[in-house]
C-alpha cells in the first residue's frame, strides 16, 4: 500500500505541495486530477525519489520513498513514467527499454519476456527498435517512456500524463493496457488531463488544487461531482 502522509514539497521559497494525504491500496488504480501547476508532477517526482520533500512521509508497503534516491525506490518496486519522458535520446529504443529493466539485470530471461510484452503492447515500436529514441515522433517517444516504466516490472506504477501527445486510438490502448497491468496485481497512480478516460478505468481519485487535496472519492462519486464535471470533464 502507498501511504502519503502530510507531504509538503518546496521549490526554494515556493511551496508546491501542502500536507498532502493520500493512499493507493494494493491492486488499485487511483487517478489524480488537477489543473496545470496543481502539483501533480511534483507529487510524482517526490514518490519516485527525484524530489526530496520538505515535510511528511511517503511509504510503499512500509518502505520509505522519500530518501531522494530513485534507484532505491525503483528497486523496491516503484516505477515512474515521468513528465517530459526523460528518455536517452541517442540510444536505440531497445536499449532504452532494456535499461528500463536495469533493476532486473541479473534476470535476462525475465527481461526478454517483458520486452516481448511491451512490444505487443506498442507494435509501433517494433520497427523502431534500432532507431535512436530521439528520432521518434512525439507520441512514439511517449510510448517508449511508458514501456520503459513497465520494463521494471513494478508493483506500483506511477504514470504522469501518459496520454500526452498520443493518438486517440493509442490512448485507448494505453488505458486498456494499464487496466490489464493492474489486473495482474500492479497498483497504479495516474495523473491525467484526459479525465474522462482516466476515471473510466480508475477505482478512486483525488483532485489536487493549488498543491492541496481538495476532493477525493470513488470513481462514481467523482464522475457525479459537479465541480469535477465542469472543470475536468468539460461538461
Amino acid at each position, binding site marked *: 500500500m502507498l501511504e502519503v502522509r502530510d507531504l509538503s514539497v518546496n521549490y526554494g521559497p515556493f511551496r508546491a505541495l501542502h500536507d498532502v494525504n493520500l493512499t493507493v491500496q494494493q491492486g488499485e488504480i487511483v487517478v489524480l486530477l488537477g*489543473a*496545470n*501547476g496543481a502539483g501533480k508532477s511534483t507529487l510524482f517526482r517526490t514518490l519516485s525519489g527525484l524530489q526530496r520533500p520538505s515535510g511528511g512521509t511517503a511509504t510503499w508497503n512500509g518502505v520509505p520513498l522519500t530518501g531522494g534516491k530513485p534507484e532505491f525506490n525503483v528497486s523496491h518496486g516503484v516505477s515512474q513514467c515521468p513528465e517530459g519522458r526523460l528518455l536517452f535520446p541517442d540510444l536505440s529504443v531497445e536499449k532504452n527499454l532494456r535499461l528500463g529493466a536495469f533493476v532486473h539485470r541479473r534476470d535476462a530471461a525475465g527481461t526478454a519476456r517483458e520486452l516481448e510484452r511491451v512490444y505487443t503492447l506498442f507494435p*509501433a515500436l517494433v520497427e*523502431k527498435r534500432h532507431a535512436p529514441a530521439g*528520432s*521518434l*515522433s*512525439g*507520441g*512514439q517517444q*511517449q*510510448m517508449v517512456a511508458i514501456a520503459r516504466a513497465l520494463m521494471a516490472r513494478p508493483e506500483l506504477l506511477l504514470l504522469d*500524463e501518459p496520454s*500526452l*501527445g*498520443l*493518438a*486517440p*486510438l*493509442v*490512448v*485507448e490502448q494505453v488505458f486498456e493496457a494499464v487496466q490489464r497491468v493492474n489486473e495482474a496485481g500492479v497498483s497504479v497512480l495516474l495523473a491525467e*488531463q*484526459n*479525465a*474522462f*478516460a482516466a476515471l473510466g478505468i480508475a477505482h478512486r481519485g483525488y483532485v489536487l488544487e493549488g498543491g492541496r487535496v481538495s476532493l477525493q472519492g470513488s470513481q462514481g462519486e467523482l464522475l457525479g461531482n459537479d465541480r469535477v464535471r*465542469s*472543470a*475536468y*470533464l*468539460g*461538461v
Partner: protein
Amino acid sequence: MPEPGRSAPILEVQDLGIHFGGLHAVRDVTASLPAGQITAIIGPNGAGKSTFFNLISGFYQPTSGRIRFEGQDITRLKTHQVVARGIARTFQTTTIYKELSVLDNAMIGHRVRTRAGLFDALLRTGRERHDEAGSRLGAMRALERVGLAPQAGRPAGALTQEGQKRVGIAMALASDPALLLLDEPAAGMNPEETVNLMSLIRELVTGGLTVALVEHKMSLVMGLADQILVLHHGQKIAQGTPTEVSRDPAVIEAYLGGHAHGGQMGQRTEGGAHA
C-alpha cells in the same frame, strides 16, 4: 481540394515527400490550405504530421515535391526566409526562451520584420532606434492578442505550462504571419484551458490569419477545423470537413478507433466567451 466558393488557397503542396534513411516520413502529399480558415492535420503517432510542418517551415528540405505560398514557390527557402514570407510556427514540445522575459521572447519573434544590423547597433543609427521601437510595439501587440500583456516583464519560465504555450504563440504572432502552424497546441491542457485556447485561435482567424494545426484532442479538432487532413504512414489518406472525416472508415480504422465520438467531444459547441 478547396470546395468551390471557398477562399483561394494560401498554401499549396504538391507531391511533397521526405525520407530519413530508409524511412519515408512524408510521401507524395498533395494538399492546400484555404486562406482565412482553420485546417487540422491529424493522424497516428509517427504519421509525419510534425515532419509535414517542418517541411513547410523550411526546417527540413523535402526530397521531392513543391511548396507554394501565396502563389510563389518557397520549396527551397531557408527557415528564416519562410518566416519572412509570412509563415510562423510553434513546436510540439513547448520551446521558448525560459530565462528571458515574456516581452523579450515576443521581441525576438519580431526580429524578422526589422533590418537593423551590427553597424546600426554600433552607430546607433536611425534605423536602429526605429527598429527597436518597432520591435517593442510589435511584441506588445502580439502579447495583447494572446492575453499576456500584463505578464510582459516576467521571466517566461515562471509561467504555467499553458502560459508558456501562449508565449510560444505570441512569439510566432510577433513575426506578423499570414499563416500560423500550431503543433499540438493543446497537449497537456485540461478541458477548460483547451476551450480558452480554442477561442483564442478563433479570434486570430477572425483577425485574418490562416491557421493549420496538428492535434490529437478531437474536441479541439472537431470544434475548430474547417477542413481536416489525415496523414497515415506519411501519406494523405483522407481530407474533408470534420463530419466527413470522422465518418471515414479508413480514418476510424487507423486513428480514431472504435469510440470515434467518445472522449471529450461534448465541448465542441460553445466556448467563445473566454477572452
